[in-house]
């Protein structure tokens, strides 16, 4: 064994910097930070549903789990509320190209799509997720039912999503 996991100190440093930047100037509609000061490798995020989508008005909580070798490898993002979307698994795990390194292709992303590398960041992931809410990619679906309904019964899709949106507000 040759120190394969590392101490995670580079990851910790980077996560602290990202947290500081996000606190100082977070893009509109996005909030994120560590769940506790004792563990920077687990974050909570809140995403505001973009206007003009059935997610509008909702505030969607999610967790981000970072590997010890972050940012060499990407975090895993998971919504912790009911979430119906073609690119989100039923357990809430988000499946978009920016969360996968090139060559890691669970959903056959287009080769031109944006991939994980250390130039990406929590902020860029969350912005990608916001655009994913407005524009699902049904070519690389994670929730097949959501893909089908989004494609062929848009009103029904909108109704399901709006119902989830209301739930996030406790209505």
């Amino acid at each position, binding site marked *: 064994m040759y120190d394969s996991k*590392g101490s995670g100190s580079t990851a910790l440093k*980077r996560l602290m*910097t990202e947290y500081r930047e996000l606190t100082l100037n977070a893009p509109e509609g996005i909030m994120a930070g560590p769940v506790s000061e004792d563990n920077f490798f687990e974050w909570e995020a809140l995403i505001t549903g973009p206007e003009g989508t059935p997610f509008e008005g909702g505030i969607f909580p999610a967790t981000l789990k970072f590997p010890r070798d972050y940012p060499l490898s990407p975090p895993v993002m998971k919504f912790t509320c009911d979430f119906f979307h073609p690119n989100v698994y039923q357990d809430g795990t988000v499946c978009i190209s920016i969360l996968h390194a090139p060559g890691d292709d669970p959903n056959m992303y287009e080769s031109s799509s944006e991939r994980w*590398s250390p130039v990406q*960041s929590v902020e860029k992931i969350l912005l990608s997720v916001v655009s994913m809410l407005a524009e699902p990619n049904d070519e690389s679906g994670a929730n097949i039912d959501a893909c089908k309904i989004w494609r062929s019964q848009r009103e029904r899709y909108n109704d399901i999503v709006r119902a989830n949106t209301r739930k996030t507000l406790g209505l």
Partner: protein
Amino acid sequence: MLKGFLRHKSIQPLTPPSPTLRASNMTSQEQNDWQPELTDEQILAFEQKIKDEEAEKIPLVCQKESIDALEKEFQDNKPFLEKVQKLKETNDELRKCRGDGNCFFRAFAFAWFESLMRNPHIFKAGVEKLKSTTELLLSGGFQELAFEDFYDVTLNQLEQIPDSDPDLLLVNFQTEEISNSIVMHLRFVTSAYLKIHSAEYEPFLIVESISIDQFCAQEVEAFGRESDHLQITALTKALDVPVEVLYLDGSSGDHVAVHEFWPDEASKGSRKALQLIYRPGHYDILYRKE
């Protein structure tokens, strides 16, 4: 499998844990609810397992060893063996690096740092060159947030060289966080250089029909992606470090093809190039006979 010249695949694809194992002892209700996807914990654990398995095979950078190791490796492969035997006329040692897709960058970095340790008169210029890379990265459109930690580690390691020794250098390059940060910094430097000189290098990507930006995002900036001619050309120019890649292949004859990467032709002959040995699948460091 070999998509281009000087490219390799070092990690064999592994199959994820079989879903049937889990499904067999579930109730019918659980089976209905159960999704055949891996949870995030499983994915992370699985990725860590692959890394651990790789790590157990060989350190990131190994001790020097006799070139006889190559003879042994190719004892049943005549075309390779003939070339290795020819190589023994000029070179006597090699140093292996782990085959994790980063071997070019890691081999280059170690060989470069080692050459600065052996030649104090070029050390200062090396440090200056490394310091100039922050400017290069900013011009290449990199955010400070993305590169500062990797740069700090790399500069810190380089600046230690005058007070260090070869054993400590090796230990540091075997330490995952230090070694990988240096690899990442060199990846960013390579990427920035290619982006800044895109007009010069884009024509080489016609076959792949992608832009330099796409190429850099997919092949250069991502950790663990293998390296090809373009990366070597860019890095040797960006850091002004000449490299010769000695290429072992299955062609007939005992001639080892040498691919030279000189930052500028004019300086050729006035200094020694680092030597790497490439055999299909891998780069290692090569040493000349003293």
